[in-house]
């Protein structure tokens, strides 16, 4: 992931490298194992029935979404502190991948809710704070993708990114308080806490491994893509200075 000194002069013509190919292969194998255990080998839950299988992808997705947010805040802090563009791009990659997994978390949560609660949406504390998380991430991405100079975008986005994790914590706390005053239907306390064992636990574990590998692979590729985007933007600065100086020479010849 760290841009290193070139080992060969001709770099790869994509965002891939030997390391990411190994990582990608591992992720694919893990996903295969996850399908095998999550959909075929593990039994249905006594109380939830088959819909417990949604948990094996839902819970890991929620976890990596939070990890992505954490990367965004961490990257933003280091960018503001050290002026490190590298970390700024990590923050950007983290936010975008986190957005993907937040959407996945929301959709799978709703699809789990329909057979369990009979409706797609209830104002469950976790579901609500995940929706708020999505809105906060979209705000960050809106600033980061502003049509403006890199410095302007990066600095403003970094302030928003810096406050992302504190905001997520405050929103979660407030939504928890807000809901728990009335009822307590959260995904985990309703389903998995009590009698999870054996193959089901192993399936969930496989889910964490597989989704984490996918997350890592996506972060590396998205980071490298952001790196390329930035290179394309700053490309040709030397040429621009030379052209500007040439203007001066022409000016001297023609008085």
């Amino acid at each position, binding site marked *: 992931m760290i841009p290193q000194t*070139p080992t060969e002069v001709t770099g*790869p013509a994509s965002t891939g*490298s030997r390391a990411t190919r190994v990582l990608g292969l591992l992720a694919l194998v893990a*996903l295969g194992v996850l399908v095998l255990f999550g959909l075929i080998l593990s039994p249905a839950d006594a109380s939830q029935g088959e819909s417990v299988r949604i948990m094996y992808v839902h819970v890991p997705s929620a976890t990596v979404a939070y990890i992505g947010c954490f990367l965004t805040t961490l990257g933003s802090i280091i960018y503001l502190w050290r002026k490190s563009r590298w970390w700024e791009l990590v923050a950007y990659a983290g936010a975008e991948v986190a957005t993907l997994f937040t959407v996945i978390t929301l959709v*799978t949560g709703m699809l789990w809710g*329909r057979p369990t609660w009979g409706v797609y949406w209830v104002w469950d504390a976790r579901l609500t704070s995940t929706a708020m998380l999505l809105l906060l991430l979209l705000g960050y991405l809106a600033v980061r993708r502003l049509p403006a100079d890199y410095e302007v975008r990066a600095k403003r986005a970094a302030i928003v990114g810096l406050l992302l994790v504190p905001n997520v914590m405050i929103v979660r706390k407030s939504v928890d308080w807000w809901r728990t005053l009335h009822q307590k239907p959260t995904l985990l306390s309703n389903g998995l806490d009590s009698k999870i064992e054996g193959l089901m636990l192993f399936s969930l574990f496989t889910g964490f491994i597989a989704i984490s590998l996918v997350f890592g692979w*996506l972060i590396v590729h998205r980071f490298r893509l952001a790196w390329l985007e930035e*290179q394309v933007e700053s490309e040709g600065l030397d040429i621009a200075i030379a052209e500007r100086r040439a203007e001066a020479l022409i000016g001297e010849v023609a008085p």
Partner: protein
Amino acid sequence: MNWGYVIASWIIVFGSIGAYSVATVLRGRRLSRQVPPEKRRWS
């Protein structure tokens, strides 16, 4: 009886991750051509 929701969730998970991955990789390939090799410092 809930298999429909299970399959739908898994398809959405695998589909969206797959689509995002493909988009990222393809865009990476396209941009790579515009950047000189010495600035793509990974191997």
